């Protein structure tokens, strides 16, 4: 079941250090081409470990967009 929240990266501040990639328990964070980190929101469980450890404060947790009829599935 998808979580209520998921992480998003502010690409402007990302330093592509890979800390998020290393702490993510679901391998949802990945540094792409050495430029910036990206989060696979399908894999993200919204645990916030990446946001709590990011040295550039560029990750935040946002509410997952609710799809029609899918609200009950969000935990």
């Amino acid at each position, binding site marked *: 079941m998808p979580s209520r929240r998921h992480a998003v990266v502010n690409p402007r*501040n990302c*330093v*592509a*250090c*890979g*800390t998020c*990639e*290393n*702490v993510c*328990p679901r391998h949802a964070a990945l*540094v792409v*081409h*050495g*430029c910036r980190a990206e989060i696979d929101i399908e894999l993200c469980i919204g645990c916030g470990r990446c946001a*709590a*450890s*990011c*040295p*550039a*404060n*560029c990750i935040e947790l946002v509410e997952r967009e609710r799809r029609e009829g899918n609200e009950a599935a969000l935990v």
Partner: protein
Amino acid sequence: MKRHWYDYLWIWTIVYFSLGFFNILFAWLGMIDFLVPLGFAIFGGNKLFCNHFCGRGQLCMKLGHELGYSRNRPTPAWLYSRWFRYGFLLFFLTMFGNMLFQTWLVGAGAASLRQTVSLFWTFQLPWHWAYAETSLPAWVAQFSFGFYSIMLTSFLLGLLMMALYRPRTWCAFCPMGTMTQMICLLRCRKK
């Protein structure tokens, strides 16, 4: 999570600084930490070194995250602002150039070997026990002292940042990280 061989590279950081304490010529091994990330960025277009192979980053995570020596406070915004990151890179490269110039002076016989380690580009620490005269030219030792100074200074800055802010706050303005990301961004733009 599954552990890989490279998850233990933090041990290399401890070994490196320990070796340099007893014999300064081991400082040359630090060139690996300079050349490998540049190689990854230039030829591979990635930051694999920062992401997985940086022993310093791993050690900061061990101390700050696992052992709890970090206050874990958000990094101040100016520390990861572009002007500071690029400014620090410029400063770092200038000091690196100065170190190379000192090495050249010793090699040319215009200056004598200084058996000291310069901390924070200011304080001269005696380090003479780590050098015994060898058949190697004096500039080799001078480079070792200079390079070890840079490595130790940046490591101590990293530890300070780890304690004050988040475990890997140093990564936010690490000159090697800034340089390799710059290379990767340029490669992305070209594509």
